[in-house]
């Protein structure tokens, strides 16, 4: 008889959470740009402070480069008071439409899931 090795529940939950965060990262990055243009480090700090999303710093620029290739964001180098140029990112019109659609999809999904999860509240079985 073959016994299947089962991964610890915490590991599996951790993996699921990582995938969940990964899936939502594109929307989160686009959402940070909704109020106005930002440079990379500002985005990372906002993701961390507002959403508790700790994004590996080396991954934000490749992600922004992909969003730019898709026409969702635009970028420009701007001389800063800090003494060095910064690359600022801003949503394009397409990006604004996309983030609105993604937000609507996310909210509909989250609302449905919340209804399903409601019976779990206060039930500690």
């Amino acid at each position, binding site marked *: 008889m073959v016994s299947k090795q089962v991964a610890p529940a915490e590991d599996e939950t951790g993996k699921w959470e990582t995938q969940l965060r990964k899936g939502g990262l594109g929307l989160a990055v686009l959402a940070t740009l909704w109020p106005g243009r930002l440079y990379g480090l500002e985005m990372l700090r906002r993701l961390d402070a507002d959403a508790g999303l700790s994004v590996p710093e080396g991954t934000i620029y490749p992600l922004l480069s992909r969003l730019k290739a898709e026409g969702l964001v635009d970028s420009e*180098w701007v001389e800063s008071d*800090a003494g060095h140029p910064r*690359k600022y990112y801003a949503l394009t019109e397409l990006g604004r439409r996309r983030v609105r659609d993604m937000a609507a999809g996310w909210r509909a999904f989250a609302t449905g899931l919340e209804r399903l999860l409601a019976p779990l509240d206060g039930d500690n079985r």
Partner: protein
Amino acid sequence: MSREQGQAHLDTYLAQVHRHLHGLSETEARETLAELRSHVLDRTEGQLSPAAVEAAIAALGAPRDVARVNVTERVASAVETNRSPLSVLRATGRLARLSLQGFTVFFVSLSGYLLAAGFLVTAIVKPFAPARAGLWILPADDLSFSLGVMDHSPLAREVLGWWIIPIGLVVGLGLAWLTWRFGVFSVRGMARGVKRPAA
């Protein structure tokens, strides 16, 4: 500990990243490095002490990992915006130098397209050069095939005759489509699976 040492440390790190940016054009590489430099300067708030630079670099990740994720994401997004067979083949070529997987994908893609082209060219040329275009079994043994337009040995035996036209067209187009799908799938897979610098 001086600002110059911090600056030198940053320059060395960026040079190491640059060495691994195979597959990016010089403009793309310069843009990537300029953005990383700007990031480190922001994170150190212009202090550039060796300790501050070291911390900022550690947060970015190892040069090889940072370079790989940059190259793979750029190549994958190029494929998403232009999925023509040539663009996909070019993308696999750009990933070929990154890893053994990249090289294998490029090799398989190139071989697939060449074989597809062989079938298509043979099928198209057959009506114009029926004696020279076709699929032949070579006299050496029954397992040696020769496909294309060529002067073959008089002992070679043609196997499909005029059937090479419909079969060549179907097989050639099918093979080209499969190779294209394989390229798109592999580039996406490599982008998803690339080792990302840890937080």
